């Protein structure tokens, strides 16, 4: 895929969001496994903030980050699978499902975490105080279970990337690091969002994540 001039495909915020998920997932798992629950909670708030920013970016961000740009219906997915689709500048219609699934799972996972309480009532997420012991205990069960589902979807995600690399000769990792990709044909370059927009989204996400982390008691 070395044809034409490289096009800026993924902006820096999007790439930072993506790779921060890799680091956060590992750190969240490790902090839980090693019993560092307070660190686990703090990492969870960071994850919440990053997810909120990704949602903001999915609506107001650069064109390749916007859900409305890359989320397609079943017909487009079928066409892509048949190889009948045009060149994708950004997520392809099938990859879009992977993005939605991973983001959705992580949002639900963090949501359960906020209400989770350990069985002893010692450590609890900031919103556990608003629900009963039974509900908080139920949330803990889901919080534990869903992590394994996320791992499974991550595994599929990684396998798909290897498939593109080995079989389709399309390196997806490089552009996610450099932000640039060369296309064989002429494509319309994606429209990148402004720095002010990044800052506004980051500030909003941080503020919301922080309020939730206090359990809305300021």
């Amino acid at each position, binding site marked *: 895929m070395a044809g034409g001039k490289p096009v800026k495909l993924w902006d820096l915020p999007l790439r930072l969001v993506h790779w921060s998920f890799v680091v956060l997932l590992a750190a969240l798992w490790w902090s839980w496994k090693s019993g560092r629950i307070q660190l686990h909670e703090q990492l969870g708030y960071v994850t919440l903030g990053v997810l909120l920013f990704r949602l903001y970016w999915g609506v107001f961000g650069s064109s390749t980050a916007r859900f409305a740009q890359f989320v397609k219906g079943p017909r487009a997915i079928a066409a892509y699978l048949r190889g009948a689709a045009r060149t994708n500048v950004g997520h392809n219609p099938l990859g879009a499902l992977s993005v939605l699934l991973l983001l959705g799972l992580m949002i639900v996972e963090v949501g359960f975490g906020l209400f989770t*309480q*350990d*069985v*002893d*009532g*010692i*450590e*609890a997420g900031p919103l*556990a*105080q608003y629900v009963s*012991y039974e509900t*908080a*205990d139920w949330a803990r069960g889901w919080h534990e279970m869903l992590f394994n589902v996320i791992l499974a979807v991550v595994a599929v995600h990684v396998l798909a990337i290897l498939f593109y690399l080995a079989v389709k000769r399309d390196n997806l990792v490089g552009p996610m690091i450099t932000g640039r990709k060369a296309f064989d044909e002429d494509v319309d370059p994606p429209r990148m969002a402004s720095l002010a927009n990044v800052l506004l989204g980051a500030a909003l996400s941080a503020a919301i994540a922080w309020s939730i982390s206090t*359990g809305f*008691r300021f």
Partner: protein
Amino acid sequence: MGKVAILVAISAAGALPFGQPGAAAPNPAAVQNVVDARVARYKQLGKANKAIRDELSQSRPNLANVQANARVIEALARQIPSWFPHGSGQQPGVKSEALPVIWQQVPTFRKRAAGLAGAAHQTAAAAASGNLDATRTAASTIGPACKACHDTFREKK
């Protein structure tokens, strides 16, 4: 029918035959009942602990509620050693997180349970006195008291 088989049949039929170490093994279902009963009581402990946490995170905590739940914890904590009769630990056919070390270090186990009762007692006393800061300080020792026991005697997940 051998002696052991008869003993097993008797224990299956009736009361829990938890005696001293070395007594005949009771049937797994009966042991599981004992385990389930103590798990239910530990959940009561967790519930009371949550009630205290939740109350103290309010802007104006109701100390009477803290006191009542601290008394619940104290009363339950004093019973803890009685929830662990000999032979009620992990064994084939029984799902339990209670480690064998409980019965190998009985004095330490009792001391840890008493530690929780003491922490709850202090919390109830502080709440009764109406001193919010003292209540918070005392209540903050309940979680570590639970953990002190779990770290040694409960299976890690």
